[in-house]
Structure formats: C-alpha cells, structure tokens
C-alpha cells in the first residue's frame, strides 16, 4: 500500500520542481528588492513597500486573475509573448512557477530585508576603507552576513509554493501532469465520489514532503551557523 504509484510520484516531482524553480526565480529580484527597501531612501518607498506586500493580503484567486489579465494568452503581456515567441504560460508548469513566485515574493523579501537590516553598516564602511567598491562590499560583506535571511526566505518561498493553490489554479489551470501540483491534485480527488482514499494518500504524502523540507532546512541552517562561527 505504501509504495507510490507512477501518477503520485509524478505529482510530487512536479510540486518539487515548481517549488525549486520558484525559489530560483525569486532569488535575485528578492535580494534586490530587499536591499532597496532596507538600505535606500527614495520617493515612493512606502508605496513600493506596500505593493511588495500586496500578495500577502490579497486573496490568491484575485492575484491569479490579475496574472491572467496580464500574462494570459490574451493578456496584455501574454498576447505579445505568444505572438513574438510562442510562449504560453497558462496551462504550462512555468505558469505554476510564476503564480507561486508572486505569492512567495513578499515572504522572501521580508526575510532577506530583516537580515540585511541586521548587518552592521560600520563593517561595510570598514570594507570601503579597505578598497572595496560598493558592489564588492555588498557581495563580500553584506550578503554573506545576511545569508541566514536568504536561506530563511528561500525556505519560506519553497513551502509557500508547495502549498500554493488559489493563484495557481486560476492562472495556470489544473492540468494533469503539467500544473496539477499536490494541493490541486488533492482538490481534484475530493471532487470525485470515489476519490477519498486517494486524496488521503496524497494528504499524507503532502505532510511527509513538508516535514522533509523542514528537516532539510534545519540541517542547512545548522551547517551555515557552524561555518560562520
């Protein structure tokens, strides 16, 4: 009973692929935005801050719909993408990546921003007197000292992506083998009269995957702490 069927394995692998890509896609923009919000004062700071946090307060379905309007096949940007490059994001697993990335963006920015704010600016000053340009200072001093924030942000984004439902189903659709991640598969099974047992198996699987992700993250964090000591 406790072996995975090929279909279940495919669902888990798809979920992990989408979550991993979500983290990778977010890494640079989240670090950039966190740095901007933590270190720079500019006109419209509060507005940018609010926009970044919007996905945390909006219903995911609303965000999925907004993505559809923007990036859907007939969307403002989506139609251009399709005409120029034949790229279609809806009903494609990349669509699921984008939907969960938008949802996870504020979580990642917040974690990295907190960590950046804890880096002592006097150390950056010291680096500059040692000949380091602002870019070198950022990559050799600021970012390494804020690694735990990047790690925490990555874990939060990964978990958020594993659990993402509303934005994904609205924007990317619920297409078996393409965008049907664990939550979507569980939802689909609960909609059919004989699906209860299969849904339960996926629920247990979902818990196991999440616990494994947490254990890996704890292990990473311990390793990081040891290396910084």
């Amino acid at each position, binding site marked *: 009973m406790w072996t995975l069927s090929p279909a279940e394995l495919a669902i888990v692998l798809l979920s992990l692929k989408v979550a991993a890509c979500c983290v990778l896609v977010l890494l640079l923009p989240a670090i950039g935005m966190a740095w901007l919000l933590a270190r720079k004062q500019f006109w419209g700071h509060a507005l940018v801050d609010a926009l970044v946090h919007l996905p945390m307060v909006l219903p995911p379905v609303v965000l999925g719909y907004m993505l559809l309007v923007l990036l859907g096949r007939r969307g403002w940007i989506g139609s251009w993408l399709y005409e120029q490059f034949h790229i279609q994001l809806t009903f494609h697993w990349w669509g699921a990546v984008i939907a969960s990335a938008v949802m996870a963006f504020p979580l990642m920015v917040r974690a990295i921003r907190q960590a950046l704010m804890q880096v002592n600016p006097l*150390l950056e000053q010291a680096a500059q007197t040692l000949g380091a340009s602002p870019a070198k200072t950022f990559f050799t001093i600021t970012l390494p000292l804020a690694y735990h924030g990047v790690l925490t942000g990555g874990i939060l984004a990964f978990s958020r992506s594993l659990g993402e439902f509303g934005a994904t189903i609205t924007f990317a659709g619920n297409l078996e083998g393409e965008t049907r991640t664990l939550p979507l598969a569980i939802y689909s099974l609960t909609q059919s009269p004989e699906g209860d047992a299969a849904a339960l198996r996926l629920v247990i699987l979902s818990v196991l995957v999440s616990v494994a992700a947490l254990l890996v993250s704890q292990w990473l964090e311990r390793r990081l702490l040891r290396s910084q000591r």
Partner: protein
Amino acid sequence: MLTVDIQIHQPYAVTSPLDLHARFELPAGRCLGIMGASGSGKTTLLHSIAGLLSPASGVIRSHADVWFDAKQHIQLPPWQRPVGLVFQDGRLFPHMTVEQNLRYGMPVSEGQISLQDVVRVLEIGALLKRKPGQLSGGEKQRVAIGRALLRQPAVLMMDEPLSGLDDHLKQQVLPYIKQVIASFALPTLYVSHVREEVAEIANEVWVLAQGQLRQPV
C-alpha cells in the same frame, strides 16, 4: 607626505554642531598624535581624510595625488584612497578567518608591505585560521592593524585603537603599535583622548579643541 588643509562643517553632528579646521603636513615615518576630548571631532577628521565624510572646503593630498579638492570638485570615494584606518572597535569581518581579513584590502599587485612582515611584526601567525569571534580584544586590534597595513596605505590612521581594551591589554598591544610605526615608516595619525598614550607613541602631539587643530605652545 600627506597634506591636509580642510574645513569641516557638520551641522547635525551627534553632540553639537561641529565646525573644524585642520591643517598639517605629515611626512613618511612621522607619527602625529592628535589629542582631544570626545566630541571634539577627532573621528570626524580621520573619516574626512578616508573619504567617509565630505569636508566643506579645502584640500587633501597624498604626495601629488589629490584625494579632495573642493575648488576643483575632486572627491575620491573611500575605496579609491589608499588609507589604512584602524577603528576603535576593530571591525573585523566576523564571517572571515583572520587570514581572509588580512588579505581583504590587499591590492592585486605586490605591495611594499607583505603578509609575512605583518604577521611577524604583529605576532599573529598562530591566529591566521581563527575567526574573529575566537580572538581576545588585544588580538583583534593587532589583526585590525595588520589588515590596515596590508591595504598598502599612503597614510596609516589609528582611531583610539586601545580605548576598548583594559589596562593590562593596552600594555600588551602598545609595543606592537610602536613596532609597526618603526618598521613600516608610514605617515601615521594616532588619535586618542589619553595624553600619556599619545605621548608614548607619537613624535609630536597636537590638540584638537574649539574646532582648531593646534600644536600646543
């Protein structure tokens, strides 16, 4: 030779508005001690020379290299000024080993001051693989001095390097500072509020008070 002739105006200084005039020339091998009460602008002066702060007017030159000239609108950023600045609190990078800290500011091309010389003079060979968190206060300051030296600075500036240490540690680190000044013959600025300390280290002692850096009469 370091030539400094600057006016500093800091309306929002921490304690009270600061207006400061400093004018001096510092040849290689000389150590100028600067005494002054806290809030007199000692750190502000050093930071202005390092480029961390911008003076209101004047000129800062190292030999023929102009670092700052208000009239000609020249102002090199700190990372383009070869200064060795030792901070009061050391400011070692906590995620790097001592050796990585020492090498951080080393220019790519071979300089006059070698890692071996610095390690020998400051006796920090046994510490190279450690992280700053594993060092005592005195060891940290010795590494900080070494790091500043390996930047191959045109001027070495020490901002109260002993003030964070207790008397026992001060007595341990003091000989190293003297040894550094004697060995590397750099133009050196040594700032402290303790008269005996400055007198012991510097060739001459100037006083910063009421916004003027003066040679005491």
